[in-house]
Structure formats: structure tokens, C-alpha cells
């Protein structure tokens, strides 16, 4: 039996095994669709393409929620240095509020002394990507870049100000330390299907935390991060 013949035979056997299982499945299991589920299915049927994109963006939100974990690791890694730098140590204690096995909550209590958040841009975008959306508040800026095939790169940065907090859950990811210029950051390679990879780094001098989410590998993401520049006025 050749490998192709074996694959064909096993494929058939797997299909028939599924068929047998289906025939013997109990019929008293009642799936009672919720209103939200029906709404989602209606949206999906109306435009599968768009629905899938929105679902993927929700995954992005989930990924962003993990960023605080990176910060904790970042802080822990620098613990030795921080002992020698009182200002930095103070900043750490202001960030780290609560940590347990399943999630971490950060709160930042530094008084807000920033008059206006500067504008930053990724200057080294891959080919055909361009900025499609930018939203900003006093302490947070989010920028979206998109290419002609619909791939998206999300770039955001936050001023680490009083009242900032993040409560996140930890899930399967491979974490690598990366250098973003002379700043230290971390790269999250998500092992979850549909999740974006994330790179984050902290510019302590300007009290900014940067985050980029995209489906790119570590070297591409690092290159994007290094290319982030403050807009010239």
C-alpha cells in the first residue's frame, strides 16, 4: 500500500467513523440558540467576509489584554537594576498592584503631568500598508494600518498615567525578549489560532508604553517597532 493509498483509505475510514458516530448520537441534546447567537449567524450569512474580520478583531482585543503580563515580566527582569534606581523602582510599585496565577491587574498611580500626547508613527511599514484610521484621547492613541489585501497592523501607545489599569488573563504564548533600539521589549508569539502576535516596549523617559499587533514574525515586528518615530511638527 503506497502512502497515497493509505491516506485515501484512512480518509474514507475517518469519514465513515464520523458518520457512525453521528448516527449513534443521542437525539435528546437540545441546542437552544440564544438571541445573540442568532444575531451573529445572521450577520455571518449576510457577509461572511466582514463577519470573520470582526471576529478576528475581537481576538485582537483579547491579545491586547495580555500586554500587562509582558509588563510584569519586563519589570521582574529588571528587578536587580531597579534596586539601584529609586525613581524606576517607584514606577514599578506604582504599576504592579495585584498578581495571581490566572490574571494580573496593574494600576498606575503616577500623577498625570502630560499636557499633550505626542504623535508617533510607524515609518517602516511593509509594502502597500497605509494608515487608515487614527484615534486619540488625552492618554491613548490607536492607529490602524491596512494593505490592499485587508491585512491589518494595529499600533497603539499609552501614557502611563494615574488611574490606568489592566486586568488580563494569561494564555498560551511564547514570550521572547527583544531589543527595540536601546529599549527592552517583549514579543508574544500567540499559539492561538486567529490571534495576532504582539510586541510591546516601554519608553520610560517619556512614560509611554507602545504596542503593535500584527500577523508578522518576531523580526518583522521588531523592525516595525524600531521604525516608530515621533512625528515632526
Amino acid at each position, binding site marked *: 500500500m503506497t502512502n497515497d493509498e493509505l491516506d485515501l483509505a*484512512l480518509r474514507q475510514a475517518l469519514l465513515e467513523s464520523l458518520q457512525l458516530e453521528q448516527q449513534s448520537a443521542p437525539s435528546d441534546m437540545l441546542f437552544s440558540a440564544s438571541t445573540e447567537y442568532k444575531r451573529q449567524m445572521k450577520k455571518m450569512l449576510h457577509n461572511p467576509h466582514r463577519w470573520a474580520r470582526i471576529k*478576528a478583531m475581537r481576538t485582537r482585543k483579547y491579545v491586547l489584554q495580555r500586554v500587562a503580563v509582558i509588563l510584569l515580566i519586563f519589570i521582574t527582569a529588571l528587578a536587580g537594576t531597579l534596586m539601584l534606581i529609586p525613581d524606576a523602582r517607584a514606577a514599578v510599585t506604582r504599576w504592579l498592584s495585584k498578581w495571581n496565577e490566572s490574571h494580573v491587574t496593574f494600576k498606575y498611580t503616577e500623577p498625570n503631568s502630560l499636557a499633550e500626547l505626542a504623535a508617533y508613527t510607524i515609518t517602516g511599514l511593509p509594502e502597500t500598508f497605509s494608515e487608515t484610521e487614527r484615534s486619540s484621547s488625552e492618554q491613548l492613541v490607536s492607529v490602524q494600518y491596512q494593505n490592499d489585501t485587508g491585512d491589518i497592523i494595529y499600533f497603539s501607545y499609552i501614557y502611563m498615567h494615574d488611574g490606568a489599569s489592566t486586568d488580563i488573563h494569561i494564555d498560551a504564548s511564547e514570550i521572547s525578549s527583544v531589543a527595540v533600539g536601546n529599549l527592552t521589549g517583549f514579543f508574544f508569539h500567540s499559539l492561538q489560532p486567529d490571534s*495576532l502576535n504582539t510586541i510591546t516596549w516601554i519608553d520610560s523617559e517619556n512614560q509611554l508604553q507602545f504596542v503593535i499587533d500584527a500577523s508578522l514574525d518576531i523580526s518583522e515586528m521588531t523592525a516595525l517597532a524600531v521604525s516608530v518615530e515621533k512625528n515632526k511638527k
Partner: protein
Amino acid sequence: MLALLLASLDSETEQVKFTRIYQMHHKTMEAKAFSILKNQQDAEDAMQNAFLQVIRHFEKAGTIADSELIFWLISIVKNEALLILRKRTRVVPPEDWSFFTSDVTDYYSLLDLISRLPDTCRAALEMKLICGYTNKEIASYLQISETAVSTRITRAKTFLKKLLESEGIYP
């Protein structure tokens, strides 16, 4: 990953086909998800994740015979449900291969044996042979390494090949 391979669903014809597939099979898929998860919210999550997979791999639907399409869909939703189940329990039991010493005398006992394969092993086989996913895609989907995917597939195929050949069992 956010980048979605949705080009195959761009045309109106393909959207009509997608709607037809949904209308024909969603109830069977929902029943499958619910029978595994026994929780309405989880079953709905599994269904939505399953359709994300269907949309993403929709070009595969064109290569599968109509009579087999339902089993392709069941395989997808079943594996999405098992993924949720694994996350919920947070315990991954060791794979039990002891039943592989069982006597397999005919084709139906082989089908029974396949139905009792360890979950991740069977999922990897289904994704490879029914859905046509690459080892990398399977690894990402099951959250295991590509090596682990390859090991599972090779192990199962080697044993099943031996059975098929030694017993003269063919579908």
C-alpha cells in the same frame, strides 16, 4: 492571526454556496457541539469558531463531495468543541494507546477503533486527511508543536497501515 484568507468567498456564487451549506447543516453541527460541551454558551462559541474555520478554508468545500461535506463540517465543529473542552478542564490526560492491542477483525471494528483514538491524534488525522490542513496549521489549531503533530499522525498511520495490511481490511 488577523490576516484571513477569504478571497474564495468574495463572489456572490460562493456566498450563496456558503449560505446553502449553513442552512443544510447547521443544526447537525449545533447538535454535535452541544453533545460534546453540554453547555449552550460553549456550544455557540464552538459553532462560531467552526464557521470561522469554514470561511477561512472555504476553498476546501469545493473539493469535497456533497455527500461528505457534512462530515467535514462535523469534524471542524467537533474539534472546536474539544478545544474549548480542553481549555475549560485545563487538564490534558495522557494519551491512552493501550486499546490498540484490541482485535480488529473487520472494517467496522476498525472504524470503532478510530473513534476511540486519543482526541488530539484523531483531530490531527482528520485535519490532515479530511480538511487538508498543513502540519503547521494543525499545530497552531491544536496548540501543540509541529513535531507533536507529525508524531501523532505518523504513529496513527503506521499502526493503522499495519492493521489494514495484515487483516486485509479495506474501506
